C-alpha cells in the first residue's frame, strides 16, 4: 500500500461512521437543500487535503463537522448573513419552562410527543429556517453531532456562555413552533385547564452585546484552513 493509499484509507475509516450525521446536519443546516452534495463535496475535499494536519487520536468528528459548518455558513451567507446580536446575560436561565406551566398544548405535546413528531419534518424545516444561523448550528450540533457545549464552543469559535444562550433560544423557538403547529392542526384536543399564551419573548433580564467578530472565522469567505491551523479545526 502506498503512502497516499494509506492516507486515504485512514481518512475513510474515520469518515465512514460520520456520513449519516454529516449528511443530516448538512440537510438541516442549508437553506438551499439542492446544495447538500456540493457542500459535502467541498468540505470533504478540503478536509482530505488538510488531513496531514489532523492529529491522530484527537476529535475527528468535531474536526470534520467544522469543515462542513464553515462551508454551510459560507453558502447560507447569501441568504442570511450571520448577525451576532444580543445574547442574554443570564444565559443559563432558560425561561422556557414557564411556557410549560402556561400552555396546555405544550404540556400535551411533552406528554405524548409522537402525535406531533410523526409530522415532524413538515414543521421542522420551516422552524429551523426561522432560527438565526448560530442558533440553528448549536441546536443541530448538539442534536445530530451530540457535541458537548465545550466542543461546540471550539467548533464555532464562540464562548461557552453563548453556546448555552443560542442553544436555549433555539430549543425554545423550536418548541414554540411545534406547539403552534400542533395547536393549528388540533393535534392535541383540549381537555383544558385554561388557555395559556405561549411566551415568545426571550429572557427579560439585562443583555449585553458580545463582540464575537474576532472569533468568527465563519464569516471569512476564505475556505477553512486558509489561515492558521487552529482555524482549521486542528485544535479540536
Amino acid at each position, binding site marked *: 500500500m502506498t503512502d497516499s493509499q494509506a492516507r486515504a484509507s485512514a481518512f475513510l475509516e474515520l469518515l465512514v461512521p460520520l456520513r449519516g450525521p454529516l449528511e443530516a446536519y448538512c440537510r438541516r443546516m442549508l437553506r438551499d437543500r439542492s446544495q447538500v452534495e456540493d457542500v459535502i463535496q467541498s468540505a470533504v475535499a478540503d478536509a482530505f487535503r488538510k488531513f496531514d494536519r489532523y492529529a491522530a487520536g484527537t476529535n475527528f468528528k468535531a474536526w470534520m463537522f467544522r469543515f462542513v459548518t464553515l462551508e454551510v455558513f459560507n453558502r447560507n451567507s447569501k441568504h442570511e448573513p450571520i448577525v451576532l446580536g444580543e445574547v442574554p446575560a443570564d444565559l443559563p436561565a432558560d425561561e422556557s419552562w414557564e411556557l410549560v406551566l402556561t400552555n396546555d398544548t405544550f404540556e400535551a405535546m411533552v406528554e405524548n410527543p409522537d402525535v406531533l413528531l410523526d409530522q415532524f419534518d413538515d414543521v421542522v424545516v420551516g422552524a429551523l429556517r426561522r432560527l438565526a444561523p448560530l442558533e440553528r448550528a448549536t441546536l443541530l450540533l448538539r442534536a445530530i453531532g451530540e457535541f*458537548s457545549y465545550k466542543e461546540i464552543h471550539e467548533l464555532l469559535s464562540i464562548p461557552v456562555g453563548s453556546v448555552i444562550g443560542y442553544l436555549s433560544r433555539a430549543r425554545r423557538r423550536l418548541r414554540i413552533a411545534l406547539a403552534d403547529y400542533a395547536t393549528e392542526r388540533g393535534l392535541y384536543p383540549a381537555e383544558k385547564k385554561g388557555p395559556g399564551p405561549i411566551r415568545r419573548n426571550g429572557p427579560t433580564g439585562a443583555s449585553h452585546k458580545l463582540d464575537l467578530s474576532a472569533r468568527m472565522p465563519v464569516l471569512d469567505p476564505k475556505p477553512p484552513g486558509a489561515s492558521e491551523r487552529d482555524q482549521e479545526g486542528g485544535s479540536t
Partner: protein
Amino acid sequence: MNCHEARQHWMLYIDSEGDPELHFRISDHLAMCPDCAEWFAKRHRFEQAVAERLAASEPTAQLWDRVLGKAGVVQPAAGRRRWLAIGGVLAAAAAIVLAVLLFPKGQPHGSELAAIAADWHERWSQGAMRPDLVSQSDEQVDRYLKDHVPFRVHCPPRKDVNFAVAGAGVRTVKDQSAAYIVGNVDKAAITILVFARDSLDAFPLDRSHLAEGGGRHRCREKNYEMVSGITADNVVFVVGAAAPEVLEQVLNAYGSYHETEGA
C-alpha cells in the same frame, strides 16, 4: 434548592453540562420532589425524541460515492477503469443490437430515459433490484424523498388512483439525480421515475419527444407500456405492465396531488 431554581437549570442538567455542584443540588432536589422528577423526565424524553428526529438520516450511498470519488479519497484502479470502459462499450453495443431486434420499425418507442426507466422497472419487478427504501407508507416514502432528493419531488400518487406504494430510492443517470417510486395498481407493478425538469438538457432526444407530444409521450419499452410527461418541477416516467390509460392516470395523479394539497 427549590422547584423554581431546579427547573431554571433543566437544560444544563439534561445535557449533563455545567457545574457539578449544580448537578448534585438538582439531583438532591429531584430525589425529594416527585413532581420535579417527573417534570424533568418528561422534558428529557421530549428533547431526546426531537434530537432523534433531527438526526434521523441514513447516508445516501450514491451521494457519498460521488463525493468520495470527486474528493480523490476513493480512486478506481486504472485496470478496473479500463475494464469498466470496455464493459460499458460492449454493454452499449449489446443494448443497440437488442433495441433493433426488439423494436420493429414503426412501433412507437422511447429514447434514452425511457429505456432506463424500463430497465429499472424490469429489475425491480423481477426482484433483481431492491429499492433503497422498502415501505408501504406514503408518508415515509414522501419523507425519504424530501430528505434524499436534491430537487423538488412530489409524494407518490395515493389512493385516488389505487397506487399502493412499495418503496423508493435515488439513482444517478449521466450525473443527473433521479428519484424512483415503485408500487402497484391492482397488482400490476409500476415504477415512477422522476427527474428535475432541467435534467432534460442532458437528454436532448427525450426533450424533443416530449416537445413533440406537447409535454406528454406514450411509448413501449421492452415489454412495458410507458407514459412520460413534464410537470411544473419534474420530468416523470411511469412504466409498468398496466394499460397505458392506467399509467396515464398515475402520471396525472403524480402531477396534481401536491397542488390539490397545497403543499
